[in-house]
């Protein structure tokens, strides 16, 4: 049943003139890609989950710049004018109470927060008086450079295999009327493509006392 509903959702995207890359790849004209390294603001996916190895921590992941080929990945980078911001609402009003602000400059990732933002909403300035964690950006094919902070925060930035998967080719054929259903097994159109990923692991103690958090990711630029 769940599968059928998903199929319906995807089909609906084409009907209503939507761009058909799912998740959040290339979701809007202003952030279009693929692999738009000059802008680098297109979020492909965001994840928030409890660390599988430490239940006292949450992990936040923001992937950007989807559909990077292996050759394009080697030269891909995080633009220095972009802020990657995790927003956390711990009061249930859909307004961010804490932010984790990530900047990449001169081959280094610096993560500010979690900390209460200067202002909420569509514009941000860097809040520098919270936790600050730093590491080098990991180059394509290199061992991950993990930055740590004495408060338990761990960070990473660099290319990763895109975990999103979808049989886009067959989907297009179904929409065009030349096929009637997905194949089993399907063929992952996103196999072998990479994203530029930022990962932040944070002790739950730094995220307030609420039992439920609302999380979303934003890219902002200057």
């Amino acid at each position, binding site marked *: 049943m769940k599968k059928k509903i998903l199929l319906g959702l995807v089909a609906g995207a084409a009907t209503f003139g939507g761009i*058909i890359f799912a998740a959040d790849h290339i979701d809007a004209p202003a*952030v279009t890609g693929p692999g738009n390294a000059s802008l680098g603001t297109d979020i492909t996916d965001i994840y928030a989950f409890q660390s599988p190895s430490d239940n006292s921590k949450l992990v936040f992941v923001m992937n950007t710049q989807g559909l990077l080929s292996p050759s394009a990945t080697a030269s891909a980078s995080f633009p220095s004018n972009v802020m990657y911001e995790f927003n956390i609402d711990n009061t249930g009003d859909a*307004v961010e109470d804490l932010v984790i602000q990530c900047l990449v400059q001169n081959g280094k990732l610096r993560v500010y927060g979690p900390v209460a933002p200067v202002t909420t909403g569509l514009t941000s300035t860097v809040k520098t008086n919270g*936790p600050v964690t730093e590491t080098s950006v990991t180059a394509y094919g290199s061992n991950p450079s993990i930055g740590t902070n004495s408060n338990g925060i761990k960070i990473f930035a660099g290319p990763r295999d895109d975990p999103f998967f979808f049989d886009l080719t067959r989907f297009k054929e179904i929409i065009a009327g030349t096929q009637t259903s997905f194949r089993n097994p399907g063929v992952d159109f996103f196999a072998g493509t990479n994203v530029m990923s930022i990962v932040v692991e944070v002790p739950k103690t730094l*995220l307030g*006392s*609420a039992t*439920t958090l609302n999380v979303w990711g934003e*890219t902002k630029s200057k």
Partner: protein
Amino acid sequence: MIQLKKIFIVPVFVSAVVMSCNKDNDSDNFDTSGTYTQNDQMARPAINTVFVNAARKNEFNTTIPSMQNAAFNAQFQSVLTGFGIYYKHFENE
């Protein structure tokens, strides 16, 4: 938005965290000046891709979560209503 359930909280650790902050780090060649303006946003997957008409996809990315209900409720409903025929289609296969 993505909702997370936290398991437990240990407030005692907060004081240690505050002491570990290092404000001096910002002096060494990291430019933290200026105002950053929003380009893209995402929480649950495929929301903008599926539920928002092409003409409003940029608008969705710059509508803060607390305003999305008012701005996009009718839009989402119309798309969902449109799913009916496709749901039926796949159901019958």
